[in-house]
């Protein structure tokens, strides 16, 4: 670890709190902006929308920089660790800005719906991300490596029906052990295992949905 743990934890909590407050301000500002634009758009209203959108976006950007800085300090391997997170956040900002500015400048009623949806979904996602990061860093990383894996498997056992445990979780465990034997870094093994676990949940949901549809078709 290249920095002091206690100091880092305190700093990260502070940074995350700033981030969450900024995001809440941002969402309130955008909701106001959307409401304003939805009711009879005209030039003053559009300008008001831009006025609300720009400072709020600045706040969000600031919050994200703070959060990334906090997250960055917690990684042993900063190069690989934050790349995917940064990409997601940058994509979200670009998506909301492009759609936001386009709609603010245009006056077509139909386009306000995707604008509202894009803004709200991307900001909700970012808010969830900030909470998720806080939970991840303060809770999950405090658990020893082996316990984390055992807890994850226990969680999957709770979610997946018992008839899939032996095959699916057996394959998952075998893959996990193979990756460790290959000497792949622990964070990467955990990440792959997490994705695999989500894949298993997806498989289960697919099977459930498939059975439901088959039953409906048979009845029909």
């Amino acid at each position: 670890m290249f920095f002091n743990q206690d100091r880092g934890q305190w700093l990260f909590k502070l940074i995350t709190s700033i981030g969450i407050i900024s995001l809440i301000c941002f969402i309130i500002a955008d909701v106001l902006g959307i409401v304003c634009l939805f009711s009879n758009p005209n030039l003053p209203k559009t300008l008001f929308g831009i006025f609300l959108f720009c400072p709020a976006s600045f706040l969000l950007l600031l919050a994200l920089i703070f959060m990334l800085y906090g997250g960055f300090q917690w990684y042993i391997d900063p190069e690989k660790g934050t790349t995917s997170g940064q990409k997601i956040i940058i994509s979200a900002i670009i998506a909301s800005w492009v759609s936001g500015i386009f709609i603010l400048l245009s006056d077509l009623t139909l386009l306000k719906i995707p604008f509202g949806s894009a803004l709200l979904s991307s900001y909700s996602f970012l808010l969830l991300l900030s909470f998720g990061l806080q939970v991840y860093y303060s809770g999950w990383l405090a658990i020893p490596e082996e316990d984390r894996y055992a807890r994850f498997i226990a969680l999957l056992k709770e979610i997946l029906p018992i008839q899939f445990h032996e095959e699916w979780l057996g394959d998952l465990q075998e893959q996990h052990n193979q990756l460790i034997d290959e000497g792949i870094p622990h964070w990467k093994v955990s990440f792959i295992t997490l994705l695999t676990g989500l894949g298993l949940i997806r498989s289960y949901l697919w099977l459930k949905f498939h059975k439901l549809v088959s039953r409906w078709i048979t009845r029909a």
Partner: protein
Amino acid sequence: MKKNQDSIFDLSPKEEAVLTSVFYRERYGLEIIEAVKEASGGKIKLGFGSLYPTLHKLEEKGYLEARWGDETPEERGGARRRYYRITGLGVKVLAQKKQFLNDLAGCEPAWGGV
């Protein structure tokens, strides 16, 4: 007969890959993922999220059959492996698809081609 002719179009590329991976010998889930990855030079990565639904569909169509392995390896936490192997119908459908693609590639256009 109609169903049999249509079944070659029933087979998605993913299903075809999984079915081909168990053509010569039976394999279990993780082994199929690795076989597909190796054969494609790492370009195609079949995830757990799509593997089991694919296996289920193929089993449902009667192209695959499964059995539980006898061994209980330690690296799997004592869980048995579930092995999949191609059925006679699966072999037939794959052969039909291959034949169809060959015929299609060799098909001369009526107007003599470009």
